[in-house]
């Protein structure tokens, strides 16, 4: 009976091993399809998107020719650091960035997925904030006076939501805006008033040309003003110049200026949740661009392509073969030293490897070079655990006692490794989190699997 149980367990291990390493082929639409999920490989093993950007030559749409004085190493470095900040704010988990200090060319390598194109947009998008005079394009307030940008929303009693962006000014910016408010129409309402009165002024000018008498009246008004009479306030408003706020070259209406904050509405008031989400996304995008810093030079994309890794399938296969041979030799040592117990532990080890490979695939862990290191480490730890277990079994005959002792000894020693794995699991960097996740699943599987399978096999053998 015990022999049948052992045979059943071994056959189950063989089946799982075949499924894990050879696949499970089922006929789908007249062809055999492997239903077992494949591994997800990281950028170093599979490939990634490579984007080369260069200083804009001013010939494209919306581009300005760069001032030769701005083409310095320091500015190239600023652009590179800004790009890195944007990628970090976007939560990009794996990238490489390189700068050619001579030409200013920057190369960014990213993992290829559904949102890579969005990341690439942010790489060259301008987030420069400017307040400038409409007619003369004179800069009145620049990026350096913006401390921070936040976005939020409010709702009105009817339940409509308005998303807005708030630019927090520095002390210098605050003083500047107070000064500008007197001479410039900045708020949307003011701008509308000035624009509305402008056609009236034009009409007055043209009617003055036709009717010189009116011109006299105007002169009389001016003389009255000079005489100290109170001027017409509407006329004073109309003499204010218009200031336009632009972010990344796009104009936005200023809704409110309160203390050191400028508020800009993004989209209109709406109850439609899709529109609200779109407005929030647009506001978040602007906030990200503004908060990550300004580009002193404009850049454009030179090339944007997917490039496969230089690590070939052949190289991976050679590596797998080497590891397989090492594992095979180690298991032979186990069998030679511990005979039947060694053989059972070896079978169990093979089953462990098979289940581990399935867990890695089905928990969507991305395998990086560090992840491969974690796999090897787990296999080594599991081997040592089994080795120690079998060693103790020679001295202590009861399997339960052996398991308890070995587990206590091994896992207590592994607590620092568990701490390291957990910390790496939560690392933002994809390669480290790959290591952490694989270590975590490996340690959990090791704890559970050896209790269920290895212990059962050895116990059945013991009580034969």
């Amino acid at each position, binding site marked *: 009976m015990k022999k049948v149980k052992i045979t059943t367990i071994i056959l189950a291990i063989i089946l799982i091993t075949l499924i894990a390493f050879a696949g499970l082929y089922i006929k789908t639409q007249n062809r055999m399809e492997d239903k077992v999920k494949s591994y997800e490989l990281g950028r170093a093993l599979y*490939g990634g998107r490579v984007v080369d950007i260069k200083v804009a030559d001013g010939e494209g749409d919306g581009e300005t020719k760069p001032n030769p004085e701005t083409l310095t190493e320091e500015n190239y470095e600023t652009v590179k650091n800004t790009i890195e900040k944007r990628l970090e704010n976007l939560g990009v988990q794996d990238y*490489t960035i*390189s700068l050619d200090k001579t030409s200013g060319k920057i190369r960014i390598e990213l993992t290829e997925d559904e949102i890579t194109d969005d990341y690439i947009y942010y790489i060259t998008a301008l987030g420069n904030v400017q307040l400038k005079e409409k007619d003369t394009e004179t800069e009145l307030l620049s990026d350096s006076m913006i401390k921070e940008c936040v976005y939020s929303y409010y709702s009105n009693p009817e339940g409509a939501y308005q998303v807005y962006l708030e630019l927090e000014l520095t002390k210098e910016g605050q003083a500047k805006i107070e000064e500008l408010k007197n001479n410039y129409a900045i708020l949307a309402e003011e701008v509308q008033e000035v624009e509305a009165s402008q056609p009236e002024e034009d009409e007055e000018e043209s009617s003055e040309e036709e009717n010189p008498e009116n011109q006299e009246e105007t002169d009389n008004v001016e003389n009255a003003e000079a005489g100290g009479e109170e001027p017409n306030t509407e006329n004073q408003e109309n003499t204010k110049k218009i200031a336009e706020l632009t972010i990344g070259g796009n104009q936005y209406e200023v809704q409110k200026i309160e203390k050191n904050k400028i508020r800009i509405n993004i989209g209109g008031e709406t109850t439609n949740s899709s529109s609200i989400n779109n407005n929030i996304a647009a506001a978040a995008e602007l906030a990200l661009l503004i908060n990550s810093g300004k580009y002193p030079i404009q850049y454009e994309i030179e090339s944007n392509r997917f490039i496969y890794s230089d690590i070939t399938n052949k190289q991976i296969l050679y590596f797998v073969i080497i590891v397989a041979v090492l594992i095979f030799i180690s298991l032979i040592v186990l069998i030679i030293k511990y005979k039947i117990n060694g053989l059972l532990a070896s079978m169990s080890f093979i089953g462990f490897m098979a289940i581990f490979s399935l867990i890695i695939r089905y928990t969507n862990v991305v395998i990086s*070079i560090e992840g491969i290191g974690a796999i090897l480490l787990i296999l080594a730890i599991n081997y040592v655990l089994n080795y120690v277990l079998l060693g103790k079994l020679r001295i202590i005959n009861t399997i339960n006692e052996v398991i308890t002792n070995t587990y206590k000894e091994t896992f207590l020693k592994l607590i*620092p490794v568990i701490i390291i794995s957990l910390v790496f699991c939560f690392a933002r960097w994809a390669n480290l989190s790959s290591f952490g996740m694989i270590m975590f699943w490996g340690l959990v599987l090791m704890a559970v699997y050896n209790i269920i399978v290895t212990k059962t096999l050895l116990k059945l053998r013991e009580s034969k």
Partner: protein
Amino acid sequence: MKQKNIKIITLAVMAIVIIIGIVFVSIYGFNKELRFKQCQSIEIYVENKVDKTKIKEIANEVLGKKNIVQTVEIYEDMVLIKAETITEEQKNNIVNKVKENYEFEQTAEDTTINTMPTTRIRDMYKQYTLPFIISGVLVLIYMAIRYYKKGILKVIGRTILFPVIGELLLLSIIAIARIPIGIFTPVLVIAMYIVTILFVVIENEKE
């Protein structure tokens, strides 16, 4: 007594290796893998799916073993070859040899040699710093709590010293042997980190 002598000799050898490593790094710096170095590249649009092995053989023949061959885009109909330097003659040779295996329009004259920028070592590895520090601090706290009976200062000292010496030794060996640092280096560093921590645990358990 014999064990003590072995310990002293081992420490002395490690110290010498670390000092030599520091000297090497100050003079020569680390040797970077080709993918992170400033290098030159050519791109050949082959118009057919490329057999990377064949192209690699051609590249090895013309440029020597130190080169990288990568296929571009999903159809793998373009190949990117990188090497430390590529002369005009080498470029022409490569294009002509590839033309012997594939039919495509691009000629050696159409092919330009591009310069690929270098990646700074700090840019390669700065993302690893914070997780290492956090895990180091947590492991330190754990060790201090678990083995406080052995003397907190002794335990903390060991927990800091052993991994630091281990990493310095590893990096020194890499610098002295001019092993290129790149995508495989973090694995070695993490492995050394874990091995040294386990060594500290075993030493504490022994006592």
